């Protein structure tokens, strides 16, 4: 038998009420954004294609929520909009990007979820799967070589465990104990291809073949994803190397908005719909007395404003297309992302994540802009 769980985390991360409100804000933010995105695409306002992560919101939100500001995400993929929201990337910019308007993230050069945010420590993806995982291992190597207390985190689908790049990244990470967190979103499908036609042995089980723990987690439970990522981050910061987290979930829409996904068993979808990560979390928070409707309303208001602003944005200047192939000035460093979890608030570097893990956030928290439900909603 392969080891499927790591040693228990040394500190149990705690989430306070504001954290939970924030998490729900991000979950709802991702869902509503993507619903709007599908609509804009179907209205013909979004060029190219549109991809969403319906049903998988808890993974990118929960994982990113565990990161400190100096950690780097490389890269959120097509189901991982939540990670961008947690890091604080401006919502209007993201919509501009999707619409092919001028924007700070991609200048119209890239579309759909192909973007990062240099200023917030998020490296944009390439399509080739899972190339950015290899790059994440390289970032982690740099952190290790410089003895910095930061980690890199990467996302990939279960289908993306088949390309050779996955193996090379796993081998480098495991062999050299790089401080990297490898989040596999196992939604059982790679486009139309079920896992049974993708591999003989599941991703987490395979982690042992690289000398690293493989942890299976409920990908529809945002707090479970958060806790697993937090533990993996602590392990990495301790110098113990990488963790593969396999978050089990279901892709509730087609591969992209062009795909009606007729090949998916409706009963399976219905069963997973019962476990919707947002509905279940909302119920839980509502039971705790949190004003879920206020969070929803705040998120929607922001989204409406952002869409309006984005639609009013001009297209990029055509002549800009050929600029900047090469870097001719001093390279821009990766910036620091938002790290909204209260456990990071004790320090601004995130270095003391483990230490600050327990208890409520100190007063005067400066990491999160604003407070209350709106703090967790996308900007």
């Amino acid at each position, binding site marked *: 038998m392969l080891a499927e769980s790591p040693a228990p985390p040394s500190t149990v991360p705690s989430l306070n009420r504001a954290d939970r409100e924030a998490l729900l804000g991000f979950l709802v933010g991702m869902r509503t954004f993507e619903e709007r995105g599908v609509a804009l695409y179907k209205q013909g306002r979004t*060029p*190219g*294609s549109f991809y969403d992560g319906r049903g998988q919101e808890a993974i990118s939100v929960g994982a990113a929520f565990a990161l400190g500001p100096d950690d780097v995400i490389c890269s959120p993929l097509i189901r991982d909009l939540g990670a961008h929201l947690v890091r604080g990337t401006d919502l209007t910019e993201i919509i501009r990007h999707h619409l*092919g*308007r001028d924007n700070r993230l*991609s200048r*119209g*050069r*890239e*579309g*759909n979820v*192909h973007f990062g945010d240099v200023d917030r420590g998020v490296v944009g993806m*390439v*399509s*080739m*799967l899972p190339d950015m995982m290899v790059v994440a291992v390289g970032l982690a190597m740099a952190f290790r070589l410089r003895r910095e207390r930061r980690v890199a985190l990467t996302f990939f689908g279960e*289908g*993306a465990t*088949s*390309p*050779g*790049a996955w193996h090379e990244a796993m081998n480098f990470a495991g062999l050299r104990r790089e401080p990297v967190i490898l989040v596999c979103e196992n939604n059982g499908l*790679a*486009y*139309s*291809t079920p896992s049974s*036609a*993708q*591999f003989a042995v599941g991703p987490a089980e395979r982690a042992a073949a690289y000398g690293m723990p493989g942890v299976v987690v409920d990908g529809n439970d945002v707090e479970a994803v958060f806790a697993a990522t937090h533990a993996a981050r602590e392990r990495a910061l301790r110098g113990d190397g990488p963790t593969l987290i396999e978050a089990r979930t279901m892709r509730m829409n087609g591969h992209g908005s062009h795909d009606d996904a007729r*090949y998916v068993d409706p009963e399976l979808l219905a069963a997973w719909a019962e476990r919707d990560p947002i509905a279940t979390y909302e119920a839980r928070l509502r039971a705790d007395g949190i004003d879920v409707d206020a969070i929803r309303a705040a998120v929607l208001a922001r989204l409406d404003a952002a869409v309006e602003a984005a639609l009013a944005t001009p*297209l*990029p200047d*055509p*002549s*800009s*297309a*050929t600029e900047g*192939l090469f870097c001719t000035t001093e390279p821009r460093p990766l910036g620091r992302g938002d790290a909204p979890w209260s456990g990071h608030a004790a320090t601004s570097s995130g270095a003391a994540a483990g230490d600050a893990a327990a208890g409520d956030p100190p007063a005067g928290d400066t990491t999160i802009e604003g407070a209350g439900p709106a703090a967790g909603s996308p900007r």
Partner: protein
Amino acid sequence: MSTLDTTAPATATMTYLQAITDALRVEMRRDERVFVLGEDVGAFGGAFKATEGLFDEFGADRVQDTPIAEAAIIGTSVGAALAGLRPVCEVQFADFVATGFDQLVNVAGKMHWRTGLAVPMVLRLPSGGGFAGGPFHSQNPEAWFMHAPGLKVLAPSTPADAKGMLSAAIRDHNPVCFLEHKHLYRRIKGEVPVGEHLEPFTARVARAGEELTIVAYGAMLHLALEAAARFEPGRVEVLDLRSLVPLDEEAILASVRRTSKVLIVDEANETCAAGAQVAALVADRAFSDLDGPVRRVAAPDVPIPFSPVLEQQVLPTADRIAEAARELLAY
């Protein structure tokens, strides 16, 4: 358009995409060694539906879904070809071929010359831009293959050629990179011979003219024709290369000798593109016939942008082709 058949076959109207599916179906019925493999090509019918219906007709052994692993798709195809089968593999987007590049150039391409073993396989590569696919879904990688000895490289522009050349590629005994332009899939319709249909790997005069030759292939052929139509009939000739390896050097030289001027269009990035090779050929072997510089219209050396306004700035357009043609005619 010549065919290897001697009797004039019946035709049907098909899109470029339907012609490709038809070629696969006809060749699979004809030769049980032919099978297709690739990501999502099975019951789903492929990302572009090029293999639609084949799974139902031929079953899972001959229409194989694979894991996401381009090197294995290509490499296992090489093995199957060595064993006497005729794999036709699909890379979901031509852009992803870079992840299986080594198997293609070092294993497939060099096998026959090195060992005498034939590698009869076809690699279908949905390529090209024009629909806001962005930097990773719009590439035209053919020049890489042209620079790798042992690979044949085809890039048809019409439904009839797509069918005839894909069928001929499947019957060829060598590894063939078959570039099917995604932007032509559903936009281009034409008469296509029904049943067996083969096209030779040669160029074709798509429009005759006396004063200037425009050399193009794939999606660019249609823009070249559009540009040529803006001039008086008989002035601008358009040569459709169709095959890049083998390159129909005689057809290119014959046309340029007649017109004395040449404009070469590439959708690919300019440097070291197919058009550079055509230009080098003309500058060497038709030099004394030339009455003007060898001009090119190609994508500049940047990735293909997503936003349509940027993409149209980068990809060749009929306007830019016509403008370059006008200048050359006036030279």
